[in-house]
């Protein structure tokens, strides 16, 4: 076991964990102040739901220590069996299997979280929870197996997933499995839930742009774990991935705001944050296969194309509220395909050469095949799951709740209360807390009845 590699993978797992709250703020700042909590919750809850499912069967479906059919890994490792005290990875760079399990969990957590941006301001919380549980089970766990399970990594006799091992498309850190996957599902749900009231003419503008930037910054920071951590060792390849990630993100940031300057007349903070994310998305599959100059081009293309792609929804009429399609689906496709041009075995001996490095067209077709397969599988799957949930328990809040605010309706909370800031206690909303219930009763939470009594006094 290599302690340096283990330290890096554990640190990376922690970094990727932070991305989900980062995403929550990135998204949460963009919605209105009466639905920000719902947005935060849709993200944060994936840590809970996927965290538990991963232990029960998620890891096992995604990564097999023996056998397998290329589509899904099976239940050998359910309840994290065979992971305590074992090693994963090549000799010399081996790490505890549990470090790998945790690193991969964080990918499974953030992918469904990404979807939530497509259905802001109108989603029933428990329906979303159910969707996450079913979608990761039926879509994400298999797709992660396709893309991330290299045969032999977690066990000498494992077969691994078809994209990584048979098709041999390159996806270093999840351009297909994470971003195309989430983007396609986001499109499906935007269609299932339908447009927000008043869209596109009358929707709120972002209520907290600094929080958008905070979220983008935490995402960027955590993304180093995501991309450079995907080397699963602290060495050359991780350093390459760190570098390409940085360069592409910087370039995409500039690309996006330059588009804004020409199109809208001003560069915006939201644009800078969005451009950075677009760059991070696009470099994700490519970061361990391209050199820094390749990353520069990928970043510029991603920044420009995604900035333009956010206009698609107005043209096509779907309310992908926070541009999951424009940023993650489009950015993921851009990055996955550009590998076909810019890949170079100079940075990664396990990689290959794209069109511009003398590698011919073959890698590009493989990239397209992988992108198409994940896109199609995820879109159809999400459409079906979403449709069934919508027909049965309902996926969208009532029209009244949408006007009054999802936070109040779904969570009985409001995000902010600033009015008391410089004065005596704000009594506009002065709380009437529950009177202590009678001491004879057994331990129980404050009963609503007691409260209403209290408030009447």
């Amino acid at each position, binding site marked *: 076991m290599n302690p340096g590699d283990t330290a890096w993978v554990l640190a990376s797992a922690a970094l990727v964990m932070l991305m989900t709250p980062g995403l929550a703020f990135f998204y949460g700042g963009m919605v209105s102040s009466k639905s920000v909590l719902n947005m935060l919750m849709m993200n944060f809850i994936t840590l809970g739901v996927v965290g538990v499912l991963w232990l029960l069967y998620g890891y096992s479906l995604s990564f097999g220590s023996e056998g397998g059919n290329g589509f899904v890994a099976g239940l050998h490792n359910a309840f994290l069996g065979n992971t305590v005290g074992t090693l994963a990875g090549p000799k010399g760079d081996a790490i505890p299997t549990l470090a790998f399990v945790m690193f991969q969990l964080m990918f499974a957590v953030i992918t469904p979280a990404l979807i939530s941006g497509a259905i802001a301001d109108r989603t029933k919380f428990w329906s979303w929870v159910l969707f996450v549980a079913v979608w990761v089970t039926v879509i994400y766990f298999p797709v992660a197996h396709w893309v991330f399970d290299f045969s032999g990594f977690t066990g000498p006799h494992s077969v691994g997933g078809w994209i990584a091992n048979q098709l041999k498309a390159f996806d270093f850190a999840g351009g297909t499995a994470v971003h195309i996957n989430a983007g396609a599902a986001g499109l499906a749900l935007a269609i299932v839930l339908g447009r927000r009231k008043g869209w596109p003419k009358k929707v709120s503008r972002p209520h907290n742009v600094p929080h958008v930037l905070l979220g983008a910054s935490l995402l960027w920071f955590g993304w180093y774990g995501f991309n450079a951590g995907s080397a699963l060792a602290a060495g050359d390849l991780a350093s390459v991935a760190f570098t390409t990630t940085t360069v592409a993100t910087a370039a995409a940031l500039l690309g996006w705001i330059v588009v804004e300057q020409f199109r809208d007349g001003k560069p915006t903070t939201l644009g800078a944050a969005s451009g950075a994310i677009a760059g991070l998305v696009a470099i994700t599959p490519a970061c361990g296969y391209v050199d820094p100059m390749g990353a520069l081009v990928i970043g510029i293309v991603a920044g420009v194309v995604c900035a333009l792609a956010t206009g698609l929804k107005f043209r096509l009429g779907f309310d992908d509220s926070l541009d999951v399609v424009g940023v993650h689906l489009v950015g993921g496709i851009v990055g996955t395909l550009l590998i076909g041009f810019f890949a170079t075995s100079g940075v990664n001996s396990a990689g290959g050469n794209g069109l511009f490095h003398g590698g011919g067209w073959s890698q590009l077709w493989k990239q397209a095949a992988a992108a198409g397969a994940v896109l199609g599988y995820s879109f159809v799957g999400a459409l079906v799951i979403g449709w069934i949930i919508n027909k049965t328990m309902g996926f969208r809040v009532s029209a009244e709740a949408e006007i009054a605010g999802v936070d*109040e309706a779904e969570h009985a909370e409001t995000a902010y209360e600033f009015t008391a800031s410089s004065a005596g206690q704000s009594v506009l909303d002065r709380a009437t807390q529950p009177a202590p219930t009678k001491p004879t009763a057994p331990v129980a939470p*404050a009963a609503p009845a007691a409260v209403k009594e209290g408030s009447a006094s």
Partner: protein
Amino acid sequence: MRLLTAIVKPFTLDDVKAALEQLGLLGMTVSEVRGYGRQKGHTEVYRGAEYQVDFVAKLKVEVLVEDDVAERAVEAVVKAARTGRIGDGKVWVTPVDIVVRVRTGERGVDAL
């Protein structure tokens, strides 16, 4: 001169503004207020403790109008702000002695 004051549901403002514009009234002043009345507030819960929020967010629209337009303005606002559900608000009119446009010092009708 009269001052028309309307307490309305926030999302009706666009319609109220449009209705006033149709009468040629192109100025107004709006503020955020909270109302208490027949319409119930809502309840929030933090760690099991309930908080009763009695007040409901409303907008207050103030418009200076000439005396003879007042009645029509009231009708227009009432119509535009009506949803038919409890909490639609109130409109009232008060007399005004002097009106001045700060920029020019014009008074009365010219100040509007």
